């Protein structure tokens, strides 16, 4: 372990005291932050040369971001346990027998969730809930089944204090799916985040319609292109956290992101960006991720000691990692300006074309980089269009069109996005607030989903522009909680604070309403 300066120690001690004395952090949020501060004092990773400048600079010079994963990763960022195994066989470590009815199944899940860590210290994946619970649906009558599911979801919202927690439903129609949608409409809660895996050949229209109606009432579920994910990750995949496609029974070791706008700023012109600056930063970030993955697997002991491995709920061989990026739009606009060319990302063919060329370079780099311990994805990382963090200013999420610059017509926005979703098996997505009028015509949204998935769009979210529950970037918050926090009162979910930052820095309340 490398030594650090006393100045850094003193600085961290001050941050520790500030955290302890904070009025707007709950106890759980303080404990998490204190652990992160302790971790920040370690220097154990084998870091690539040149990383410090790209990672630790402020403002425009920062080209790589590691999303506060800490200096000594002690567990994978995202873990997606095989809950089906749990419900079939129970868990020896937790002394849970295999459940025999719906009540036991839900209780088993709620107990298990407390023992699934992640970057947030809460489980980011709650299971393919409807498929998991459908075998138990007829063990109670419908009224009781609905009540149990509703209480389960309420329990999740009040005890998993972070809306990166994600449950999946679909593509097959299930009774539990309907119970979940009806419960969520009533609950109006931010947690869990939900995705519906949709496949036009499997999902009947009335199931999709129920999902859309739920989405218009409480901003979830979002819709995942099942065919596309299956073609890349196989049938056993999950949507976790914001919208991250990952192998079931595994997950992601880490996620770092390229800040493409800042890489464009340090480039002379398009050629310099493509041939020198971008490859330079990509290489350093990949090697930084390699170091993180190796520490996790070889040093941290997580994979040697957790009951999740010992009992087969996860397997080390099913983990991969996410090679992320933000600000494709920013990079394209900056580079076109440097070349003296007119054109804006989201509006002009020349900008779309440059965006595609940049993505092809990143994709090719990733395909050529041998990533350690990523057997499940062919020895390579998965590209990820990261949705941004609260502190981002002037950084456009993933490959989205900046808020405030969306084309007048939704069709034009979808057309642009259809060029980019294919690059990101571990997640990308677009968000559309829709006018209340759509409530009388949910088929409108259904048609857009169906058309989008035919055009190889991957993931779409809708919400009513005047709802309490709204989608920030990938996660959900309650507007009413946001207002409380803004007035200085501590609130239950840590993601509300991220939403507050995003509303001030990322203008997420100003998206074009469709």
């Amino acid at each position, binding site marked *: 372990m490398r030594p650090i300066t006393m100045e850094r120690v003193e600085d961290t001690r001050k941050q520790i005291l500030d955290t302890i004395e904070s009025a707007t952090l709950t106890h759980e949020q303080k404990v998490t932050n204190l652990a992160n501060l302790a971790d920040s004092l370690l220097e154990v990773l084998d870091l690539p040369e040149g990383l410090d400048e790209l990672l630790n600079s402020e403002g425009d010079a920062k080209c790589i971001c590691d999303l506060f994963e800490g200096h000594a990763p002690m567990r994978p960022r995202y873990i997606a346990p095989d809950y089906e195994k749990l419900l079939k066989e129970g868990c020896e470590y937790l002394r849970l027998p295999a459940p025999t009815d719906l009540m036991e199944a839900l209780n088993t899940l709620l107990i298990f969730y407390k023992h699934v860590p992640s970057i947030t210290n809460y489980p980011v994946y709650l299971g393919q809930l409807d498929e998991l619970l459908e075998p138990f649906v007829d063990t109670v009558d419908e009224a009781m089944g609905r009540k149990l599911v509703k209480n389960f979801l309420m329990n999740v919202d009040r005890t998993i204090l972070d809306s990166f927690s994600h449950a999946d439903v679909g593509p097959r129609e299930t009774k539990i799916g309907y119970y979940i949608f009806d419960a969520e409409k009533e609950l109006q809660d931010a947690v869990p985040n939900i995705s519906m895996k949709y496949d036009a050949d499997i999902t009947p229209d009335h199931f999709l319609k129920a999902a859309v109606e739920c989405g218009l009432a409480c901003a979830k579920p979002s819709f995942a292109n099942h065919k596309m994910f299956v073609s890349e990750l196989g049938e056993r995949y999950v949507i976790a956290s914001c919208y991250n496609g990952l192998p079931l029974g595994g997950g992601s070791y880490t996620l770092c992101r390229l800040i493409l706008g800042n890489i464009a700023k340090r480039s002379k012109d398009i050629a310099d960006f493509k041939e020198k600056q971008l490859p330079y930063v990509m290489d350093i970030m990949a090697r930084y991720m390699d170091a993180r993955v190796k520490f996790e697997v070889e040093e941290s002991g997580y994979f040697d000691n957790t009951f999740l491995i010992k009992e087969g709920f996860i397997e080390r061989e099913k983990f991969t990692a996410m090679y992320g990026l933000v600000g494709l739009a920013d990079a394209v606009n900056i580079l076109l300006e440097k070349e003296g060319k007119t054109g804006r990302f989201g509006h002009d063919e020349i900008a779309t074309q440059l965006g595609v060329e940049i993505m092809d370079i990143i994709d090719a780099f990733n395909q050529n980089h041998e990533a350690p311990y990523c057997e499940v994805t062919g020895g390579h990382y998965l590209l990820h269009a990261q949705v941004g963090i609260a502190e981002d200013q002037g950084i456009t999420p993933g490959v989205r069109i900046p808020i405030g610059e969306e084309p007048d*017509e*939704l*069709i034009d926005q*979808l*057309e642009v996005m259809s060029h980019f979703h294919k690059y990101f098996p571990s997640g990308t997505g677009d968000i559309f607030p*829709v*006018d209340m*009028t*759509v409530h*009388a*015509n949910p*088929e*409108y*949204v*259904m*048609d*857009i989903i*169906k*058309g*989008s998935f*035919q*055009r190889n769009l991957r993931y779409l979210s809708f919400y009513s522009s005047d709802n309490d529950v709204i989608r920030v970037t990938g996660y959900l918050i309650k507007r009413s909680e946001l207002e409380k926090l803004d007035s200085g009162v501590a609130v239950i979910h840590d993601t509300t604070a991220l939403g507050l930052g995003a509303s001030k820095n990322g203008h997420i309340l100003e998206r074009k309403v*469709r």
Partner: protein
Amino acid sequence: MKATVVKIIPFSCVDGPGNRTAIFLQGCNINCKYCHNPETRGPKNPEATEMTVEEVMERVKKQVPFIRGITVSGGECMLHPEFVQAIFEQAKPLGLTTLIDSNGTIPFEKYPELMAVTDGVMLDIKAMNREDHIKITDHDNDTVLANAKYLAECGKLYEVRSVIVPGLYNGDKNADALIEFLEPLHQLSDFRIKLITYRPNGVREEYAIYKQPSKVFMQRLGERFREHGFEVVIV
């Protein structure tokens, strides 16, 4: 063949089922006091453009496969039946459904070729009482009611629409008469009722004197139709 097109809305959620491209043609033959788009009434409009059928279809094709159909509206699109027919003939092979939004003053029966490529009509019945209809539109409703019957008989009545304007005519009495008239037609064909809340914005100043009906009033009116087995949409 050309027509004056006011605008084309690529994605519309209010012009029929699902997501549709809505095409608005210039010119109208009646004079609704509550018209929201009075600029589309006359033969000319600086905002409108002359377009061929092919030009319109180019704009439509861009939305495939995101839309399930197209709706032609106005003005009054039945003033251009050949143009509408030509558009529909090209839309059908693309798998799109075709709807007409009409004030019903032009008899559909006279255009069998157009009807052959039309999936449904959204028909305004602005008032059941003949004098009320004249008061609202400067035009009687004889053809409107005949159209309702004809369309229900051939299964092409998709929706009956009525704008609710308290003060302009007796809404309660009109609802009763409408239910009485539509009930037998509903036996022949499954169509829905759309009750549209009058809103003064956009209406010509001299006519923007009426009150917007309350949500409660609209719901109560809708309930009366629902009691008689109609599917009702309130906007």
